[in-house]
Each structure stands twice: as structure tokens, then as C-alpha cells.
């Protein structure tokens, strides 16, 4: 099962932390720092898996953001690796070319998306069009002046998916 989900940027700022196990606040902070330390030192030639305490982290980098899922050691690595991508695609659909700032300004909506897709540490829904509650939420329809302006300042964070394709071609 999933123990926690973290979205962090390269500087170590947490953009989402979702816990499926009881941790106290100090422990959470420690985990966040440890995950950042083990994940950011790895490059594209490394695997997307890292052993982590008694668990393992499955992670994927999109532009400047690391999406990390901590699961049990005998869990299926590739299934969770693609669960991350599926999640990012849903976010992308929802925010229309998601960028890091979407996650900052709409953090409360991200939590809803997470709950639609993952619940109790398990995958709840995998279809990209059947997140029924999402339609109810008011969408950030276009990138607002605020967002585009801000994204312009840090170009690499805009449009996560586009960047990951770049990353992939680098890999190949």
C-alpha cells in the first residue's frame, strides 16, 4: 500500500504531502527532508526506485517537481510509476497545462484530486474521465495573468508534461 505521497520541488519545498500512515509532525518533517535528499541526487540514468527505510520510493520528475510515492517493498514498481504519470495527466487535464504554481494556488483542489485517485493508501480510480467530483469544482480555465507572469519568471516549472517529454527524449 501507499505510505505517503509527496510532491516537492528541487529546492525541497513541499507542494503536496499526503499521509496514509500515522506520523507525528516531527517525523513527517524528517521524512520530507530524507526523501528530498535521496531523490534529488539521482539522475536520469538511475532507476525510478529507491530503497527507503523499510519501504521504497517510486518517483518521477516532471520539470522541477518530484512526484514521490512511498510504498511497501513488495509492491509493483511499474504500476505505481505509471500511477504517478496518470495522476499528473489528470492534473494536467484539470488545470489545463498544469504548472507548479497551479499546485500552490489551488492546493485544496489538489487534495481533492488525490482523494479521487488514491484512498486509504490504495488506488481508487484510474480512469481519466471518471473523476465525477472534479467537474463540480470551478476550474482555473486559463492561465491567468498572475500565473503566466509568475511562470515566466521560472520558465521550467510551467507545463509539467511538456517538460517531461523533453526529459524522456534526453533519456533515450
Amino acid at each position, binding site marked *: 500500500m501507499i505510505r505517503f505521497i509527496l510532491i516537492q520541488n528541487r529546492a525541497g519545498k513541499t507542494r503536496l504531502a499526503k499521509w496514509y500512515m500515522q506520523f507525528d509532525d516531527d517525523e513527517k518533517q524528517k521524512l520530507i527532508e530524507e526523501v528530498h535528499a535521496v531523490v534529488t541526487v539521482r539522475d536520469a540514468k538511475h532507476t525510478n526506485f529507491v530503497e527507503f527505510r523499510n519501504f521504497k520510493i517510486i518517483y518521477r520528475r516532471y520539470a522541477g517537481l518530484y512526484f514521490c510515492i512511498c510504498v511497501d517493498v513488495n509492491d509493483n514498481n511499474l*504500476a505505481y510509476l505509471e500511477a504517478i504519470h496518470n495522476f499528473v495527466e489528470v492534473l494536467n487535464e484539470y488545470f489545463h497545462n498544469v504548472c507548479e504554481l497551479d499546485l500552490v494556488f489551488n492546493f*485544496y483542489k489538489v487534495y481533492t484530486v488525490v482523494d479521487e485517485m488514491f484512498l*486509504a493508501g490504495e488506488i481508487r480510480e484510474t*480512469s481519466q474521465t471518471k473523476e465525477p467530483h472534479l467537474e463540480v469544482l470551478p476550474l482555473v480555465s486559463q492561465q*491567468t495573468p498572475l500565473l503566466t507572469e509568475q511562470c515566466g519568471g521560472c520558465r521550467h516549472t510551467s507545463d509539467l508534461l511538456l517538460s517531461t517529454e523533453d526529459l524522456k527524449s534526453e533519456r533515450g
Partner: protein
Amino acid sequence: MPAVSKGDGMRGLAVFISDIRNCKSKEAEIKRINKELANIRSKFKGDKALDGYSKKKYVCKLLFIFLLGHDIDFGHMEAVNLLSSNKYTEKQIGYLFISVLVNSNSELIRLINNAIKNDLASRNPTFMCLALHCIANVGSREMGEAFAADIPRILVAGDSMDSVKQSAALCLLRLYKASPDLVPMGEWTARVVHLLNDQHMGVVTAAVSLITCLCKKNPDDFKTCISLAVSRLSRIVSSASTDLQDYTYYFVPAPWLSVKLLRLLQCYPPPEDAAVKGRLVECLETVLNKAQEPPKSKKVQHSNAKNAILFETISLIIHYDSEPNLLVRACNQLGQFLQHRETNLRYLALESMCTLASSEFSHEAVKTHIDTVINALKTERDVSVRQRAADLLYAMCDRSNAKQIVSEMLRYLETADYAIREEIVLKVAILAEKYAVDYSWYVDTILNLIRIAGDYVSEEVWYRVLQIVTNRDDVQGYAAKTVFEALQAPACHENMVKVGGYILGEFGNLIAGDPRSSPPVQFSLLHSKFHLCSVATRALLLSTYIKFINLFPETKATIQGVLRAGSQLRNADVELQQRAVEYLTLSSVASTDVLATVLEEMPPFPERESSILAKLKRKKGPGAGSALDDGRRDPSSNDINGGMEPTPSTVSTPSPSADLLGLRAAPPPVAPPAPTGVGNLLVDVFSDGPAAPPSLGPTPEEAFLSSGPEDIGPPIPEADELLNKFVCKNNGVLFENQLLQIGVKSEFRQNLGRMYLFYGNKTSVQFQNFSPSVVHPGDLQTQLAVQTKRVAAQVDGGAQVQQVLNIECLGDFLTPPLLSVRFRYGGAPQSLTLKLPVTINKFFQPTEMAAQDFFQRWKQLSLPQQEAQKIFKANHPMDAEVTKAKLLGFGSALLDNVDPNPENFVGAGIIQTKALQVGCLLRLEPNAQAQMYRLTLRTSKEPVSRHLCELLAQQF
């Protein structure tokens, strides 16, 4: 000024977030936050009632502030108010706040539960899902108590919407994992299995996780899911890539559901029904076939999704371990991945092949990939991939390829990452011994290990090579020659000096004929290393020198000169000084015959002893490994190599006063608990018979004086220590001073116990007003019932009285009851408070289980609060037999062949209380080198785990 998009209502929130982002310093951020907090506080406190929108906005701001890492101490009430809003966005923020900032404030919990209850009953699927998600996210016991009974109903109700079913399934899973006792099994369990047939793939996806968990805990009750899962899987696997529409991911039909179904099937052995099995094998073959087909897309998402299913399929094939054909096909498939350009696939293939290597059907097939794996060990960039390669080489090693694998591992060791060196050293040492055909190869390998990675060669490894050389005379000459050559290297590892010193001391004579390794040459070679070595090694070398005097009389003068040197005789280190003095004297006073006897070659070690056993043996005394070290202890002893002082612990020191009760020598009780209050099992030890008649009980006045916990003194300082002595045993002397001795005999069965206390008057004067009583501090009264019988108020000099205690464990408890003893001795009042040796582990029932069951349960208890762990220094010599006895005394069953490391101890049992049973699993990992232990306890109750861990950790 930031603009906010249309439709997004919370402009204030966006402004606030961008303000925070624009803060240049931490101080500025804190200032801005404090301003906002003041603003929100005033709004919440203001006279004007806030509308839903404002409440939502402010609560959301508070949440943002909390997520930034600041404490929030208000706003909970407003968040709870949002729960009853009819607007989705307001309700959603309310639930989010509650889920993130769980508060155990009882007043609020009631309100929250009430709101959840309303939403669950609302028949609005969106609201129902929000409520279910909140329960699943919080997962507290209180919520379990409130809703565990409702959710199964929602899950199987005919009119529940699909999305609600999905949420209900996983919500129930969370509650079941957190508190299985709260989820009632019933009619719904039969129906839940049929969710595998549900039309909605999302419902199936969620339900499989719940069903898998239920199957793991009650495999027999859910067997029907096997055929349902197989047919569902079969339908998915055989569907065309577009059949499943939304559930097709990059041309792969329902990859996550397929993986989950394959994992569900791994809870069971292969299906018994031939038709079901046939259909399943067909599925597995289809997956393997598809892996060979050209990809439908070049995207990595396509191949990952496809391979996720493939790897899970292979896991199932390995789990069944019964279809040779499939096993070999799986192995070939993995073999292709070993050379894939995706690092992920290479890694996973190595990992998966490791388990295939242990199957008799596929072991040979795995072996054919040896060159690829060796290449991976040499060339992979990611250390974790190299580690998997090393693991796989170890797993595929057998007599046919041992030489190749060992030599490749040795070569790799020269450049290996520091992080994995020790592991590789151990692997090489184990393989070299296990598959050694000729022992010269074994000796070469271990010496190479020391040469290449001396720092990582632990004691066990080099002790073991000494044992094998000592025991096999065909290799002794070769070993002497080889170490002699190795020592000639200008810089050699200290472990090499140790091995060399020992071997030459024993077998140097075998190479002394060669003038290049004549005795003086051997000696000067060893002695050239002497000054650079640690005390331990120098001590060993001194023993080698005295052995040389015996082997080569011509070196006597030189060696005596060395021993006589001021640097030895007056060495600041006591050990070295003592050895020098004793050896020098021995060499001068003893005749040649005596020397030859004393310094005789070491006798062979008991045959086929593993290095791990040797490690244990070493703890017990000489005879293993470094027996030379023991020679110096007793200068008067003639047997330098075998002399052993009795260790203090084995000598019993009789106490100056007579052991009044004879308890120390009492045999353990074997009789079942006596049905009456009379301690008949004690008759053979205590001839006194039953306690004094009740007429001698305390007078009402005395009884009054001794009643009431308020006038009980605090336990004596040693009370905890005395209590600790009884954690793993039931009988013994609890307390003793000049006046009084208190002995204990006790028996426990399930949640009941009977204890006999024996009060012995050690003086010749009568004790008066003697009144022992048992007190329950705190709310122990509700957890433990102790019924005591009165005893005689007078205890004559030299006499003893007996008191019977009937004990019933009602619930789990953490503190022991107190025993207060008061009496008058020579007119002076005496009082004494002890802790009664009744600890929760006394109510342990040992449970035997197979390794598989153990691991399954272990995994089930994986919440962090269910586990307690302690790492601590050994306070007593680390002896496996003693440890075993203590663990058995502690009450748990000891499970063999569970832990892959035979040095570790694994135990299981159930704590029996009247109210509930608590399953306990424990694991103790000794580390002899560090003289440390790691103890891990997992139980279904948090305080019990911690308490047992504390109790047990004191014992070693």
C-alpha cells in the same frame, strides 16, 4: 496586483498566497501570517455573522498557514460549521481542514461525526464521498466506532452510486486495517466478493484492495474470490486494447486492475478447480505472449503499464512454483530485460530473477544468464542495480559456477561502493565455504578478501578460516605458505597479521624446511608488523612467539629478548604486560617436555560448525577462534591454550544468611494450577503445609491501619530492578534484607494467575501486626483483579507464612500492582513497598506458526504505532541458549526457521485478558560484534507494544 480567473471564488486567498510568496525573508513571512491570523481571528469573533463564502475563505487561509508549517489553534469550529453547508465547495474545504488537522477534541468529534452521519444519509453521492473520504483519511478509532457498522451497508446496497461504492470499499479497508475488531463480519462479506463482477471497473479496482486485505486475514472465508478474480482477469487480458475505453491506458487494458487481481491471487495456492486453473494458466500465457508482440506505442507509458502486468504475472508464477514451463518462460523473458536499455527494467529483472533462482524448475535457466549479470555488476551506473546483480549472483551460485562467481565478486570488491562492501565480503565468505571443493581455494579466497577489503572482514570470517585450517591437515602446509607470502607485502591489513600470526604459530613448522621461510625469517617477518598493530593483535602475536619457542628452539633467545624488552615487560597495557611476563617466565622455567605439552598444536574444532555457531561459542569461553587469548589468565595453569577460569557468573555465591525458603534451588513447577487455594504443588518444597488458620488474621484495628492506598509509601528504590528479575521467570526470591525474605511462586494460565508469597522471618524475634497487602495504583483496579487472603498477624522468629493471591487480568495494563508489607519488629514499625511481579507478559499464551503466517501477520501489524523498537547495549554476555530461555520465560513461542538470519530470534504469542486478546509478534536481532541488540515488538495495541518492548529490553 494579481488577477484571479473567473469562476474561482477565493480572490482573498490568492492574494494572500501571492503575498506570502513575495515575502523576501522568513521574518516578513511570519509578520504577514500574524497579520492575517489577527484578521481572521477578528472576523471569526466579530458580531457580524460570516456568510459561508467568507468562512470557507478564512478556513482555507488557515489551512494554508498550517501547511506552511505554522501552528493553528483556532478555526476548528468554523471548519466544522462548513461541514453542514449545502454548497459543495464549502463542505469540501471543511472536510479538508478536518482531515489535515485532526483534533481529538471530544466536543468537536461529536459534531464532526454528526455532520458525517448526515452526509452519509443524504443520498447525495458527492456529499457521501466527501464524508467517506474524511473517515478514510482520519481513520481514527472514534470514527471506526461511529461508522464501521454503516459502511458495509453502503458498500453493498443496491442503490449506491458507483463512486460511493468505490469510496466505501476503501474507507472500510482503512477502518478494518486500523481496528479490525470494530468491523463486524456478516452477510455483507459474501456480497463484497461479488463486487469483482461489478460492471464498473472503478468499483472493481477499489474493491479488489479491500478483498485482498480480507483474504489475507481470513483466507478460508473468501476462497470464492479465486474463480471470480480469474474470470475477471481473463476478460481483461483477452480484451482488445480499446475495449475498456476509459480504463485503457496507453493501449493497455486496465493495467492497475490487472496488477491488483494478480496480487489477490497470490494470497492463495494454485486453484484446485481444473477449469479455473486452466483459464488462469491461459491468462498467464497470454501475458507472456503479449510481451513478445511489437509495442502498440513507443511511449514509455505503454511499455511500463504492460510490464507492470508482466512482472506481477511472473510474481504469481513464482508464487505457485509449480509450472516448470511458465517458470522457464518467465526466466527467458527476464533474461531479455537484463539487456534492455531502460534501467528500470534491468533493475526489476535482476530483482525478479533472484527469486526465480531459488526454484528448482528455473534455477538452471537463471544460470544461463551469468555473463550478463556479471557484466551488470561491472558496468551499471546505479549502485542499486549493481547491488541487485550481486544478489542475483549469490542466488544463482552453486558448485558448478562457484569459482567463477566468487572470483568475479572478488574482482568487483576492489572497486565496489563502500556501502555494499561488507555485504559482498560476507557473501563471498559464505559461498567460498559452501562450495569449496579443495580447501586451498577456500584459503586463497579468504586471504584475498582480507587483502582487498580487510576493513570489511568481520571476526567471524577470519575465525572461520582458522577453524577450517586447524581442522584440515591437508591444507595446513598450503595455508602456512600462503600467509607467509601474503605477509611479505609491504603493507598488509591487520586482519592478515592476525591470521598469519595464528597460522604460523600453529603450522609454521610445515614450511620451516625452506630456507626462504626458516624460523628466524618467519619470526622477523611477523615481528616487523608488531609495532604497527593494535593491542589485540600484539597480544595474539605474543602468543605466537611463545608457540615459536616450542616449535623452533633456535628462536628462543631472540624471542626471550623481545619479551624481556622494557617495551613489553613494562607495557602500559596490562594485557600485553601480563602476557610478556608470563610467557617469559614460562619459557625460562618450564622444561622442554612441559613446554611441548603446554604449547601443543590446537586440537581440531568440532566439525561442521558454522561461523555463526562459532560466534556463539566464543561468547561461552575458549575453544573457538582465539583460544590463545585465554592462555594468560592463569599463570599456574599448565594448559596455556585450554586454561579457563571459572567465570564468575557460573559460580553461585551463597548468601551469608541461610536461604530460608530454599527457593533458589527449587525446581520449576510442573503441576497444573491447584484447584483449591492450597498450594499443593509446593508441598515438596515447603513442608509447612497450608497457611496458618484464619483465626490468626489481623484484628479489625490492624486491618484498618493497613488499608487504603493513601498511606502506602513509595516503592523502594530497587523495586524496579527486583521486578525486572521476574519478567522472564515466575519463581524466586523477590526481596531480602536482614529481617525479612519474601519468596514468590506463581503460575499463570490464560488470563488467570495464582501467586504464593512466602514471608520468612530471618530474625529470632517475633514480627507483630504483620500485614501484607496489595494495592492497585491509578486505574489498575479496572485492568487487574487481585484477590488476597489474609495471613497471620504474628510471624515467629525463623518461621515463615504463606499468602495466596488469585489474579485475573481484565484488560491490558502497564504498571504492576504494589505489595505493601508492614509489621512491628522489636517495637519499631517497619514498612516496605515492592512492586508485585505481575507484568502483562505473564498472560502470554505462546503461539506456534509457520514462517509464512508469521510474515503475513507481521505485515498486517505495520502501522507505526503498532510497532515498538529498541536498540540497546547488551548488559549480559550474549549467549543464544540463555536468550532462548529468557524469551520462552517471557512467554512467547520461539519460531525456528522464520528469520532468514539464524542468529535472530522470532517469537509469537497472544496476551490473554478478560476484555480482549492482543496478538504479539517479536523479533530480537543480536549483533555480537557491536554487543548490541535490536528488539522489535508488533502488537495490535500500541501501549502493549511499547510496554512489552521496555520489559523485554531490560532482560539482555
